[in-house]
């Protein structure tokens, strides 16, 4: 356990600078977005009201008040989230390959540590999860900050305070922070499975090289197939209720993750030579 925590800490430290840069970039993009969208709204409202001789209530009735939705539907928010997600996706590969392909082969030292090799795999998996949850947690705080900023820029009469349920019902936020416990578990288990399968695929490639790419592809197809078993059964038989399907897919995902861990352990122990 101690070795595992040390390894997680080691992985977190290695990515911390880049992770911090990523957070700064997302925060900057969203704060700029909040200022731009709210300032644009205010200037547009003022111009329109003067030009069309409208009262504030007429303007709100015609064009709507400013709310956090204006920001959430802007490219500043959407692109910053996509950018962060893409970077983390790249890091899922980078977290392994830099150990092999870097100047000093860190993987050599990692695999020679007096601990089970699977701890290296678990540490990398945990690190990715920490970064994903860390960013989603940061986004919650950031939305509160954005809310405060826009509230200060937009005059009270043009500002519309929204319920937290309404804010978090938008498509992207509903995906990141599902309001149903079942969906929360479902999304994040699927995410963990995807990362575990990619990790094991990387180990296939590292173990068998060119042949490994083919094996990794086959393995990925089989993994997707296993996760999809309940969905395929449902399409054919229409036997299950919706909640059961979500639970079954979650269960099969856990099974797929267990298989990924078993294969990774086997590959790390038997096939990867350092």
């Amino acid at each position: 356990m101690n070795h595992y925590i040390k390894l997680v800490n080691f992985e977190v430290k290695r990515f911390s600078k880049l992770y911090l840069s990523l957070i700064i970039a997302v925060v900057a993009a969203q704060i700029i977005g909040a200022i731009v969208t709210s300032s644009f709204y205010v200037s547009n409202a003022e111009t329109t009201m003067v030009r069309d001789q409208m009262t504030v209530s007429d303007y709100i009735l015609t064009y709507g008040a400013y709310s956090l939705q204006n920001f959430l539907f802007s490219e500043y928010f959407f692109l910053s989230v996509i950018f962060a997600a893409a970077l983390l996706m790249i890091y899922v590969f980078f977290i392994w390959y830099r150990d092999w392909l870097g100047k000093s082969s860190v993987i050599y030292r990692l695999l020679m540590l007096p601990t089970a090799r699977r701890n290296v795999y678990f540490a990398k998996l945990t690190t990715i999860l920490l970064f994903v949850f860390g960013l989603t947690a940061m986004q919650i705080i950031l939305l509160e900050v954005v809310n405060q900023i826009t509230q200060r820029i937009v005059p009270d009469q043009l500002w519309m305070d929204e319920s937290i349920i309404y804010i978090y019902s938008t498509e992207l936020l509903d995906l990141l922070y599902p309001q149903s416990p079942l969906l929360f578990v479902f999304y994040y288990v699927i995410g963990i499975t995807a990362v575990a399968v990619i990790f094991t695929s990387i180990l296939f490639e590292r173990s068998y090289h060119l042949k490994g790419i083919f094996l990794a592809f086959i393995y990925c197809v089989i993994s997707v197939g296993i996760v999809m078993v309940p969905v395929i059964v449902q399409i054919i038989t229409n036997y299950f209720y919706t909640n059961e399907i979500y639970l079954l897919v979650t269960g099969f995902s856990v099974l797929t993750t267990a298989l990924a861990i078993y294969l990774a352990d086997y590959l790390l122990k038997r096939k990867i030579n350092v």
Partner: protein
Amino acid sequence: MKKYWQLLLIAGIIVVTFTVHYIQVANAKGKDYDFTFEKISGDDKYIDSLMFKTSLQYGMVYNSLLISKDESSLIETVHNREIPLMFQKLIDEHKNFMRGKALIANNYFEDDTKLIYMKEPEEGWKVKAGDTYSYEVDILDKVKDEKTSFSIKSQLNNRYNWVFYSDITVVNNELKLIVKQVDNDGSEKMYQVIIDLKKQQLLSETLLEEAAIDEATRTSIEAYNSYSNLGHEKYHVYSISSFDMKSPELNLISSQFRAINMETNEIIDIQLPDGLEQKLQSIEVDDNYLVIAYSTKEGIVIYRYNIGQQRWLEPITASNTEKVLNPDLNSTTSLNGKLYVMTEVNNDFVLKIFDIQQGALLYEGKVINKNMKQKYYIHITDVYELESK
């Protein structure tokens, strides 16, 4: 411990932020969706044992909400796939029987001893003229908890694209079914099908109505019985309406209402009072009554037709106590001899409960939510009577 500060910081932020967020969401659910009734007139006892299923539009969010006198609760959905309350009850009581069945109320019949489900024929568009389909019947004996299934070939050899069941009931062990066939061009045929449940035999398939389409007119058949009533209904009420295809708004040319007595198979013509044809905002069927309501800026007008006696009763007029924003009725529904009508006034919604037979206003009250931060729209989709504790 000190050397793990980055790890601990990330983990700490995750735990605290997610916990606070989900506590906020839970609190907001309790507060945002807390509706209360504020009586204007009548007796509170009429809402004491009721549960209203409502549809709430709040900004761009649509939710289903259960509102009773004492509490409001949000109906949780997964990806907006909501199981209607009546089906949730059936699923809870008969989980295995309900597996794989479409949640369409018109395909079910339920009484104290049995639950019947009829599967609609699929892929009708593949059926050519001369081919046919089968009536697939699943019966659950609720007393013995036994399931029986059988299939009967239809004798109708029509070309059709879709087949719908409009009503299912059982009279003296005969399964009576109202079937609507719709072709690709929109033309419709309505049949009454009778199946002997004991012998599992098709007794008859009688053509009741035909609605054709041509260049000048479009005719359609519409049924009005309560969607959520799975039990026996003596009358199946429907209309055949013709619309002018040449007018841009498809103006109504004529509308003929009819009721079929499901016990005797007799068809009754219902003549609407003069002028009512153009004011049909709400049409409800409750047991022996056809109830038609419309709203004006001054109030609500309700027409009642006693189907058994084949006569219109004196219309009820209930004036609005507050200025009505939208003259259209927000929603109407009926249950056990009462008509529930909702209208939108200023920033609120007013519920009126009428006794259909007596023609009296029993209750009028506002449905209010003081916690909503922005304009919302609410309408009643169903009324349930709560079982006494």
